[in-house]
């Protein structure tokens, strides 16, 4: 380029509102810094630096998000926010709420990842080592650990923050990949049962890639329909209804596949149990909380902003999906014997409940779902945190039969796990009830009463596996060679305590968070 060209026609640098994107950017920056740490910091310092960087980055991003929401002029006086970065990113109230939720949940998940107790840590020392090889044993003996997890997590979280904020489908696709690729890798990093872990990584990767192909093809169709990948443009085109409807509806469906895959709705749920089971438990917690929040955020944005005028067209199909999701998730959960698979199926059913909030297609649906996601996220991180603590010589004792009599061995841990299960079951005075109440209320307001009836039936079915676990823990005699509950370091302890505290507080005084969610959702998303 030459100066003459520059002087001839001034190209206005695209306005880029760094401030509004600061939470996302901070997380990415922390991630890149993490890569540098991995490359240059001495091994002894690496772990501490990573933890400080990750927790600091997430906490900083959270503070930024809160600060943005509280002070930024785009939100002042009840304004909804704005579209930034040349129309690619929408920073609005729901987005900030979702981002803040993701950041908090990611923070708690990182606490699990950072668990320092040698007994409890979940990650393989060397992912490249063949399971069972001498190389692997050496790594174990040397006390190595895979500190790459931290930057990978930060990249994934960055993707998750961007995913629901993306205002055009290309950004959304990229965010999807940014959040997915690190997760694929991290799934394969389990310290114990590495074959399972690798299998989980492969399944997640292949199916994830498969689903993103659908997503992308859907984007192509919508681009063909609207001539743009901006959500608002698609909405405008759909309103005018001039172009080929086939492209539009095929696009909606294909895009839907990609998004529903991420939330684990039936029939796109198959990856969830296997991946949840095989992945290292802290990563499972991250996926079950943050990814779910992020994916629902994106789902809401796409369906409310781009297809908001077409509610009556996509609703019937989503009704079927929601009903299937609620029923299949809860019914299959009944016969699960592995605690992580059980939580996976439970997560499928919970996704179904949140889908009813989506189908409600109103502000209450959005705010209720956001509340639900936050409440569920904390409970689920807490539950997975406890899963990491119940161990036998082979690692985590995930088979439920070995949980028998846990209530006698360790009443506190069993009691907390029971609390999380009761919250999942939606018993009043726990966050699960408040959340369920919020989404079902929205669904009924939105005219989806039958869906809610199916929802409560599914809840009743789903209560059975939870209750069975409680029965096992409290009413059964402990197995003689049963697992022990290891004493965790402060990291996991804090995570469990946070999960439990939020579960109880949101059950008894949900109003502050509800107000916040409601405040965030009043104007839906910006276009």
């Amino acid at each position: 380029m030459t100066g003459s060209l520059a002087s001839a026609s001034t190209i206005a640098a695209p306005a880029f509102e760094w401030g509004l994107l600061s939470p996302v950017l901070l997380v990415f920056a922390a991630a890149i810094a993490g890569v540098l740490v991995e490359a240059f910091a001495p091994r002894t310092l690496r772990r501490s630096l990573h933890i400080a960087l990750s927790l600091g980055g997430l906490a900083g991003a959270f503070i930024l998000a809160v600060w943005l929401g509280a002070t930024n002029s785009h939100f002042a006086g009840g304004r909804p926010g704005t579209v930034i970065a040349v129309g690619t990113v929408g920073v609005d109230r729901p987005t900030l709420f979702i981002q803040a939720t993701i950041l908090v949940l990611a923070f708690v998940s990182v606490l699990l990842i950072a668990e320092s107790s040698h007994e409890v840590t979940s990650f393989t020392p060397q992912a490249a080592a063949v399971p069972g090889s001498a190389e692997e044993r050496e790594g174990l003996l040397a006390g190595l650990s895979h500190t790459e997890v931290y930057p990978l997590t930060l990249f994934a979280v960055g993707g998750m923050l961007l995913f629901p904020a993306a205002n055009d489908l290309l950004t959304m696709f990229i965010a999807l990949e940014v959040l997915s690729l690190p997760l694929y890798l991290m799934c394969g990093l389990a310290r114990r049962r590495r074959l399972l872990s690798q299998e989980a990584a492969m399944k997640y990767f292949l199916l994830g890639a498969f689903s993103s192909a659908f997503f992308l093809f859907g984007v192509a169709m919508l681009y063909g329909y609207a001539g743009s990948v901006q959500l608002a443009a698609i909405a405008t085109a759909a309103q005018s209804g001039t172009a080929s409807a086939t492209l539009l509806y095929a696009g909606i469906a294909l895009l839907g596949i990609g998004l529903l895959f991420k939330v684990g709705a039936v029939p796109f749920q198959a990856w969830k149990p296997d991946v949840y089971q095989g992945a290292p438990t802290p990563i499972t917690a991250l996926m079950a909380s943050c990814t779910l929040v992020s994916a629902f955020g994106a789902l809401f944005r796409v369906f409310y902003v781009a297809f908001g005028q077409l509610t009556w067209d996509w609703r019937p199909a989503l009704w079927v999906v929601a009903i299937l999701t609620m029923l299949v998730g809860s019914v299959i959960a009944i016969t699960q014997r592995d605690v992580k698979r059980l939580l996976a199926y439970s997560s499928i059913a919970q996704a179904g409940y949140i889908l009813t909030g989506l189908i409600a297609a109103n502000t209450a649906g959005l705010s209720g779902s956001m509340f639900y996601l936050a409440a569920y996220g904390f409970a689920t991180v807490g539950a997975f945190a406890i899963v990491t603590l119940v161990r036998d010589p082979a690692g985590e004792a995930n088979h439920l039969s070995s949980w028998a009599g846990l209530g006698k061995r360790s009443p506190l841990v069993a009691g907390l796990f029971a609390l999380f299960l009761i919250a999942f079951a939606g018993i009043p005075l726990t966050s699960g009830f408040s959340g369920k109440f919020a989404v079902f209320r929205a669904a009924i307001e939105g005219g989806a009463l039958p869906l809610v009836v199916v929802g409560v039936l599914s809840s009743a079915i789903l209560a059975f596996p939870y209750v069975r676990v409680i029965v096992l823990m409290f009413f059964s005699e402990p197995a003689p060679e049963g697992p022990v509950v290891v004493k965790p370091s402060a990291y996991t302890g804090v995570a469990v305590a946070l999960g439990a505290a939020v579960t109880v507080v949101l059950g008894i005084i949900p109003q502050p968070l509800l107000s916040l969610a409601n405040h965030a959702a009043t104007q839906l998303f910006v276009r």
Partner: protein
Amino acid sequence: MVSPAHFIALSVILFVIGAVGVLVRRNAIVVFMCVELMLNAANLAFVAFARMHNGLDGQLIAFFVMVVAAAEVVVGLAILTSIFRARRSASVDDANLMKY
């Protein structure tokens, strides 16, 4: 005369071939290649639509997709390699320890 519809049809055909390939092939690498084929079918559609709408967006997107696909390949091959080293098999059907 080749209309955009022809391109779209081709891209759909390619997409379906890719999807079917994912279902019928056992080798993990080939399965992954089929996914890449699906992505490229989408690319074709993007470019065709870009022509149709007389815009550059679609072509631009195709480049993005290529980059993403490349990144995916990196991650994917890493995973597949580690599995292959552990199992001495690249068949996706061999990895079914977790079920039900």
